[in-house]
């Protein structure tokens, strides 16, 4: 049943995407590890970790597309789930440092030592165990999304109201995590990681493995998201997006459907965050910044809302553009370029890169009447 669920109605686009990521997952680490640095096909470690980061963002974008593109929930707080997953992973990595921290305290992380904490807060317990930490990577964002969604969807908070309270959520978490008293390292966050599962996080092989893992998770996330959207549940969810109350009159418990999708999506975002942290080496409260979540929305819009593959594409394109623009002669003016990119995409590619390409493609093949109506706006 599960496999059927995962591969049902796979289309060409999805297949291409899957093959591509699978190929990257195998080839890039190999090219990094086996080929000599001089070789034409050698992938430098820095490039690999950069792309590892992009792919984490891609997973985050897919998770957002699932709720926004298909269910119409414009979450302006998805960064929070990403960051929570990241913190769960960060806590594990912190505990792995053991007594190798600067103060040599076997239990307390450095930031606690120099702020005179005497014992480990209870919520840090258990994070020295990898399975527990991984469970938390899923459970913490998932639970938060569940509780938050349970209230919000039951109260029928929709549209911008929902968007803004998700923003309030991430903003509140931002402020809370900034507080040093919370015990998560305040502004500096968690950093200076040493090992993951006994392997040095900095080591080239570990990086390669993390990269491959990111690809695998991206594939898994994509398959799950796809499985959901092509199933009948996916149709219900789209119906909810376009005419929520009508769906209710058909007997669907709209709140449960939304809650399900929202929670799954939050878990996916959490996994993305967890993979992100060991690759960039730091997790800090600025990941909770509302602007980050808005940016995630923008990746999805750029790539093409409601297309999954497009969301991933958007994340990679925008972040790649950022990487390119922030170096070289463009550096002082890169915001012009990025801003212009956003404006131009909206004006000339209203359905995002993928949506526009798809239209163009289908127009060339078989003309089909297109509805001019738009999905019910979120006000």
């Amino acid at each position: 049943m599960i496999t059927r669920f995962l591969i049902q109605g796979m289309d060409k686009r999805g297949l291409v995407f899957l093959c591509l990521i699978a190929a990257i997952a195998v080839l890039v680490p190999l090219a990094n590890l086996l080929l000599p640095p001089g070789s034409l096909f050698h992938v430098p470690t820095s490039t690999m970790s950069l792309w590892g980061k992009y792919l984490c963002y891609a997973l985050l974008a897919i998770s957002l597309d699932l709720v926004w593109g298909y269910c119409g929930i414009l979450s302006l707080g998805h960064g929070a789930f990403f960051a929570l997953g990241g913190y769960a992973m960060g806590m594990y990595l912190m505990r792995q440092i053991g007594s190798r921290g600067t103060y040599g305290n076997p239990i307390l992380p450095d930031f606690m030592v120099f702020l005179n904490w005497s014992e480990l807060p209870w919520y840090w317990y258990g994070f020295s165990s990898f399975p527990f930490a991984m469970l938390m990577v899923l459970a913490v964002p998932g639970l938060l999304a569940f509780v938050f969604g349970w209230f919000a969807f039951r109260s029928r908070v929709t549209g911008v109201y929902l968007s803004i309270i998700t923003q309030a959520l991430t903003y509140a978490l931002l402020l809370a995590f900034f507080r040093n008293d919370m015990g998560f390292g305040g502004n500096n966050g968690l950093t200076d990681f040493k090992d993951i599962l006994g392997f040095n996080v900095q080591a080239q092989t570990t990086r390669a493995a993390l990269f491959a893992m990111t690809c695998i998770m991206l594939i898994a996330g994509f398959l799950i998201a796809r499985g959901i959207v092509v199933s009948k549940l996916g149709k219900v969810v789209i119906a909810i997006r376009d005419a929520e109350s009508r769906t209710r009159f058909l007997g669907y418990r709209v709140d449960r459907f939304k809650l399900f999708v929202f929670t799954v999506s939050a878990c996916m975002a959490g996994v993305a965050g967890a993979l992100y942290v060991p690759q960039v080496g730091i997790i800090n409260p600025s990941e909770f910044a509302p602007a980050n979540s808005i940016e995630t929305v923008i990746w999805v819009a750029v790539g093409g809302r409601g297309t999954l593959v497009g969301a991933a594409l958007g994340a990679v394109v925008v972040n790649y553009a950022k990487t390119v623009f922030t170096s070289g002669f463009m550096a002082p003016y890169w915001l012009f370029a990025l801003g212009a990119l956003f404006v131009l995409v909206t004006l000339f590619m209203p359905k995002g890169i993928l949506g526009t390409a798809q239209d163009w493609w289908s127009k060339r093949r078989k003309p089909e009447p297109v509805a001019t109506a738009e999905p019910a706006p979120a006000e």
Partner: protein
Amino acid sequence: MTRLLRMIALILAVALSAGAARAQSADEAFTRLGADSFSDTNRAIELLIAGAHPQAAVIIEALAEGRLLAGGGAVVVKTKDGKLLDARTGAALASEPPGLNPVRLNNGVRRNIQAALGGLGLLNPDTAKRIAAAEAVFKSRDVSLLPVIETAISRETDTRAKAALRQAQAAILIAKTDAPPFDRLAAVDVLRERGDQDALATLRSLPGDASPALKDAQARAVADIEGKLALWRTVQNLWYGLSLGSVLLLAAIGLAITFGVMGVINMAHGEMVMLGAYTTFIVQEVIRARFPGLFDYSLAIALPLAFLVAGLVGIAIERGVIRFLYGRPLETLLATWGISLILQQAVRTAFGPTNREVGAPNFMSGAFELGGLAITWNRLWIIVFAALVFAALLAILKLTPIGLQMRAVTQNRRMASAMGIRTGRVDALTFGLGSGVAGLAGVALSQIDNVSPNLGQSYIIDSFMVVVFGGVGNLWGTLVGALTLGIANKLLEPYAGAVLGKIALLVFIILFIQKRPRGLFALKGRAVEA
């Protein structure tokens, strides 16, 4: 005038130099003034006063204003109109001696000067100065000034000045263990009457050896004042809340138009506010450079200009981008985010990344007391201004044909055009109005916040919260939302601290929206779903 000052100095000399050696030579004072050391300068002031130097008042005043120059053994007073006088003699100098530098001040020296001038001021003919001087003594509680105060009280005719002097006297007496018990009891009453934070502090400083009766009186007075102060503190917090609310209102009200009425998720709203603030900066720059006399009117001049600048930029954005996006509100988020990045960077490129100085005109500087309430003028004006903007906007939207057309267009653009409404123009005007109002907010915010390229970013989230909390599309909701959030924030802050207070407020918003999923002033009924 000079004779009067000399006389005061004499009286002071008697008062201050009880134990000091009288026969210090004035020379030492002048040497010390040239030594470029704060402790020497302090000592020199003491010496000048103790020695009742005829030029003391002039020198000290010059020192306070940075007009006292010293160097190469000479000490020179520069008069306000730029003439040079020999400090010792007061004689005019023909040429400037070489190597002169202003005698430097630090807070210690400044305090000494203040005390000296304060002592000098107790008998100043200007009532305001006398009151200020009495206040200074109240704070310093300098026992040695008691006789001067008493002389002053006996001569005083102005009731307010007399009260101030009495309070100063009381402050000294409280701590003076050898004063007659009856006088000290009376002093407690005077302080109780005064009833502010300073009185409380003074009362608390009652020495431990006081008589039981005195202690009892003091305890009652303290309790009395504390009760009163607690009440005032609540009022004060409400006032702060009102003031924060008005700032939020100003920041959000433009958004209530572009987002609330038009449905454009306008992420560039903050940048419109920023443009308003920068317009103020430019206006002030021009005024500083060309028409310094107009400085007090700079904000009045900036207001229409900021409205125009932000409004025109808004219209340009609407015509250039937004108009292609109607019916696709989510895309407006993407485009306006892009625009906001561009505007930020444009301002950064044009004006540099650092803060720009926007000064406060005189009528907006300082504070006044209203009962136990300290009210700063700038906050008061901002509240008034916010109220005016709100009323004007409400009138435009509800009472004018263009307001009606704005609402019609945003509810059903196609049908509005079929009614003959020029939708394009209305859209541009509406967006321009919202942006222009944001520009106005920028003028006000430049008075209390940074004028930097990041200005807008710091308000955008709060603005959205306010509009949504109040209920999208309802101007009254925005008003009540802003005030509620402002006041709640300020009432929470003393207990929870700024950070936790803000978190609590955000959680409150989240919970509140569960109760009222369409904001405070939610529209209800069929019409909304249609």
